[in-house]
């Protein structure tokens, strides 16, 4: 009876629900459609638009660098005639003494590599000391470092220039490397955050086995910190590679073979030169971005891991 009673009940409910169910199904499908198709499409259109806007200057730079016309032409987006002559002339300056792109590129690369090596070592050492060692004044030094990094670097530029001038290190790439890498240890915080996540027990075990701090650092901590090393390498390469202000102040002899890429390109925009050099300026700008792009593409995986690595301490 119960069953009999129940069955029609179920049937009726089914029948009653039949119409609504299809409407729910339809609504559900609509919802699904909205969720899976409409929203992502809109989202992607928006992203594509933002991306498009964002890429306009870059596309323009690349397009203009392949122009056959030497000067500034702002009446059209894409050049009238295409040519790679800007690139070939950039690398074959002939007697044009103020156009030494290859030399500038080498100079910048040398400075960036040296700075990169030195400041990576500095940053990792400081971070290790602050994170893994305990000594008197550690907290105080960390606070001081924090305060020092809050001052903009521009404040010290004139003084740094004066000091290096008395020592005779202006107009020298060594002086520039010194400027870039000397204070880099202050940027240890991110690396310290990462080192903090390495279990203390590992280091203690090593210590019990008779490891010195140096050995713990090189044999235990460094191999475990690949992501943060990659991050440090990239960031300490980028700073000197893209710097203009410091280089302009330090390298003031006017001798073109001393310049870095950024100074050389800046000089191409002088009023009397821009007519002949604008396309080459664009070509130089495109070329200078290649090493950075390569570095990023090669190390992208580690990069993300690196900057978020210290964030999930716990």
């Amino acid at each position, binding site marked *: 009876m119960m069953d009999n009673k129940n069955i029609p009940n179920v049937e009726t409910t089914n029948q009653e629900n039949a119409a609504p169910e299809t409407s729910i199904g339809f609504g559900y499908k609509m919802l699904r459609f909205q969720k899976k198709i409409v929203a992502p499409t809109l989202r992607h259109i928006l992203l594509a638009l933002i991306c498009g806007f964002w890429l306009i200057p870059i596309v323009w730079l690349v397009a203009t660098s392949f122009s056959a016309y030497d000067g500034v032409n702002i009446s059209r987006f894409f050049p009238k005639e295409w040519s790679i002559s800007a690139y070939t002339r950039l690398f074959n300056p002939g007697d044009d003494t103020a156009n030494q792109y290859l030399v500038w590129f080498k100079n910048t690369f040398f400075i960036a590599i040296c700075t990169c090596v030195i400041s990576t070592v500095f940053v990792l050492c400081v971070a290790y000391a602050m994170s893994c060692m305990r000594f008197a004044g550690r907290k105080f030094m960390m606070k001081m470092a924090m305060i020092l990094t809050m001052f903009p670097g521009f404040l010290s530029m004139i003084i740094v220039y004066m000091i290096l001038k008395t020592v005779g290190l202006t107009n020298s790439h060594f002086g520039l490397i010194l400027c870039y890498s000397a204070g880099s240890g202050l940027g240890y915080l991110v690396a310290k955050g990462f080192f903090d996540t390495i279990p203390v027990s590992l280091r203690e075990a090593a210590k019990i086995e008779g490891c010195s701090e140096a050995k713990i650092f090189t044999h235990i901590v460094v191999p475990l910190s690949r992501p943060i090393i990659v991050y440090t390498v990239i960031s300490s390469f980028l700073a000197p590679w893209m710097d203009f202000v410091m280089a302009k102040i330090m390298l*003031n002899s006017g001798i073109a073979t001393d310049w870095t890429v950024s100074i050389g390109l800046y000089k191409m925009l002088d009023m*009397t030169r821009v007519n002949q050099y604008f396309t080459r300026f664009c070509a130089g700008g495109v070329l200078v971005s290649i090493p950075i792009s390569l570095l990023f593409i090669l190390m992208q995986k580690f990069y993300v891991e690196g900057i978020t690595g210290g964030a999930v301490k716990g």
Partner: protein
Amino acid sequence: MKKLLCMVMVLAMVLSLCACGDTTTTDPSKTPGESQNPSSSKEPEASKDPASLPTVTLTVWGGEGEESQAFLKAAVEAFKEANKDKANFDIKIGAESESTVKDTVLADPEAAADVFYMADDQVAALVAAGAIAEVIFETDKVIEENGGQDSGSIKAASVDGKLYAFPATASNGYFMFYNKEYFSEDDVKSFEKMVEVAAAAGKKVSFQMDSGWYLYGFFNGAGLSATLNEDGKTNSCDWNATSGTYTGVQVAESILNLVASEGFTAASDADFQTGIAEGTIIAGVNGTWNAKAAEAAWGENYAATKLPTFNVNGTDVQMSSYAGYKLVAVSNYSENTNYAMALARFLTNYDNQVMRFEMVGEGPSNVQAASSEKVLADPATAALAAQGAYATVQRIGNNFWDPSQTLGTILAQGNPDNIDLQTLLDNAVEGITAPIIE
């Protein structure tokens, strides 16, 4: 152990600094790449010379352009050759823009080159800072060669009657470029006629109205002045004059009249280059730095002449302009002032001014060189020389630029808000003559 390591590290750092300091101070001219070479390697060279002449190290800065660098190289070689009995010269050629060299020099006068090229508007500031030395070498001869005490180039290079630099070129002024295909020689005599012709052809005549440097040509042409006061900082200006031959309002009206024409455009430098390359601009006021672009675009039809007249209150008035010169100065901090003076003098003598004209295309300031046939055959230089009769030396304080640019911008837009012209000029003059707060 740790302490020992610390000591060693500190010592190593200090020593390395000292070592570098030594090589660079004994031989400041060396490029960093060479700094490993011991400085003693130079001595054998000097002793090889029978007379064992002193070695003189100099640095010269000139414009960054390929041509002016090539000129410098050639002239410096000639200087070495001409003075090889006096000293062994080690002369480095650097590239610093003539228009902004002041900023580089004033950032650290001690680090400046011994000899450098500059545009004449920077003399006053450099003299005030004590960065450049007074000319003490063949001064009278230099003045005579450049047309005497009252000539523009000497005035431009002097402060308080003392000559502080050697005039090198007379090339920084502006004049009228035009395309012969559209304009006859009579057309280019009047600005009104030119815009009329351009409007009829559906093309444009360009004049960079929104720049005080160019705008000055209209007002000064009509006899309204803007000059530097004796204090060397503030300006006096009567562009808002309500009496006199022409009033300020009349000049502004004739400018607005030109701007209103279909054939007029207030193109910037970049727009001008684009315009002549594209064929939309068929004439324009600009300087020698755009001569090559104009010649390339117009070919056989390329021509240049002095500035035209413009119509003020029914009368045709000749436009004036700023005359600009490039000068060669000697740093006050040079360790070899005498040799530096000699080099600066050599770079600006007759032969080298002619050579500079031939290689760089900048007209000479030397009167004799300027009147040579070769120079007069160049349209741009000839036009600039013709305009020279109506041009004045640029002597104006910093407060001039922003207010005059604002005025020019409003005029170039045709006074869109219909501001009373007298008020507009009064405001500009107030800004130009404002005292300098320090």
